[in-house]
């Protein structure tokens, strides 16, 4: 898999990370290197093999659908870079 700078920019936008031209050039080579290296997985015959969905051989636990926590909005917004009246503040999304 050969990654070009256009693809790096597309992925970076999907990941919501702004990258500089210099970073795009370096990442093009680094990502190509990593993806070339993982290509060796193609050698492995995985026909009929189920993908692993859990590292444990126990069924996932369930609990009653009830509120167990909460009621402290001031704690929730305490670390927010910008907040008001216990709401998170973001730039205008809808005009």
């Amino acid at each position, binding site marked *: 898999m050969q990654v070009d700078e256009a693809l790096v920019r597309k992925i970076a936008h999907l990941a919501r990370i702004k990258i500089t031209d210099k970073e795009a050039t370096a990442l093009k080579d680094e990502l190509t290197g990593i993806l070339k290296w993982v290509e060796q997985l193609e050698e492995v015959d995985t026909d009929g093999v189920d993908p692993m969905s*859990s590292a444990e051989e126990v069924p996932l636990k369930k609990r009653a659908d009830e509120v167990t926590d909460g009621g402290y909005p001031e704690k929730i917004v305490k670390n927010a870079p910008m907040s008001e009246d216990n709401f998170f*503040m973001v730039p205008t999304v809808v005009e």
Partner: protein
Amino acid sequence: MSKQSELTNLTIADARNGLRAGDFTAHELTEAHLANIEAANGALNAYVLTTADRALEMAKESDKRLGGKGKSKNDAGELEGIPLGIKDLFATNNVRTTACSHILDGFVPPYESTVTQNLWDAGAVMLGKLNNDEFAMGSSNENSDFGPCINPWRRQGDETPLVPGGSSGGSASAVAANLCLGATATDTGGSIRQPAAFTGTVGLKPTYGRCSRWGIVAFASSLDQAGPITRTVEDAAIMLGAMAGHDPKDSTSVDLKVPDYEKALTKGVKGLKVGIPKEYRVDGMSGEIEDLWQQGIDWLKAAGAEIQEVSLKHTKYALPAYYIIAPAEASSNLARYDGVRYGLRVEGDDIVSMYENTRAAGFGAEVKRRVLIGTYVLSAGYYDAYYLKAQKIRTLIKRDFDQAFDKVDVLLAPTTPSPAFGIGEKGADPVEMYLNDIFTVTVNMAGLPGLSVPAGLSGEGTPLGLQLIGRPFDEATILRAGRVIEEAGGGSPTPENWWSDAPAAGKVARPAAKSASKKKKGKKS
């Protein structure tokens, strides 16, 4: 030996006995460690935050429960008065937690991780937060926003600063340099065992599900697991006993009884079947690693274990499959760092550019690389070719282990392909750095417990480790086999102290005590 170095050189087991017998107080023990940190941290950069006031306060409380100097009292917790360091990946209530990332600048959690809460409930004392690779992504601790952590070990006759390994480099360095009696760490692909091997300490990665992940900054959720780094196998058993246990807040935490690991230690390995995975004998393996491995085989054999070769056919595919799965999960987990709810925020023209600017400024190079790889392999049209393929290979890796454990009780392998390397020596090629985890990553992929035990020194005079791998939830067996290797090999070696009051080795990216990032009040729009 001064009183200070006497107290900081103790094992957890000995310190516990001394405290209970009233030979010294928890306050004295904590003060001795704080003094060591003060003298050493400039050179080693192991702690990114020390919590001296809280530590002394906790020690005072422990002393009340212990009954005070000269008295003996037994209503104390299992870790009463034991000073520990905490990897900065564990959320600690009202104590800054950053995962050593700029994007979590000034984050002060209003909650405590389950594992650290378990430790405080057992009476342990928190000395501070330890350095690590940003978001636990790295094998050298060079990817920290607080600057690299330095290994207390140096090559013989050489002052080149060496890496302590990673990502739990601060934990390993602090334990090796007597800056705490034990430390918490986390292991996603080798981040407990590899730094333990590089620093001559004991590192235990428990079975996936043994310790709660609640309150630990998430990297790759199907692989992350917390465990201890200590100076002895017995101490690892003591710490795991306190850290482990079922937690309803983590759906993958298993509701199984935590065995008495200390009791298991004395059983020896007579009749134990030890498997030697032949695929771990990789091309280009150094002679000294091969010799170390053979030495470990001979020690276990001499102690009465039965050795047999086993095959783990898919070993060579574990690392490339890991570098699909771990970045995929990371790209998803790290989507939460968007400048809205906590940490850094860099304004932009609109909300998307605010996200992009924040994440550009907040993430380091390795984290960006992995988030991009993860985003790519999960993007439309590529999911089957990469992620699904890797998860199928993971099934095959697990199957290999299941078949091996039909024949043997435990596996023995080297922990790392080399001893500690120098700061800046690797890293030009990301894949070269990834290869550090070649012997450790399989264990995470299969969710198994793994233990690294110091087993000797390299030709350069630096530590090397051997790794024991066990069946799921059978930490007891790897601990007792580890104890045999520890006894045969002489245990944790002691590095020569060059660091106390030494000038700072490298420029630290940011002072550790930096205050919380400025908060701005928003305007209603």
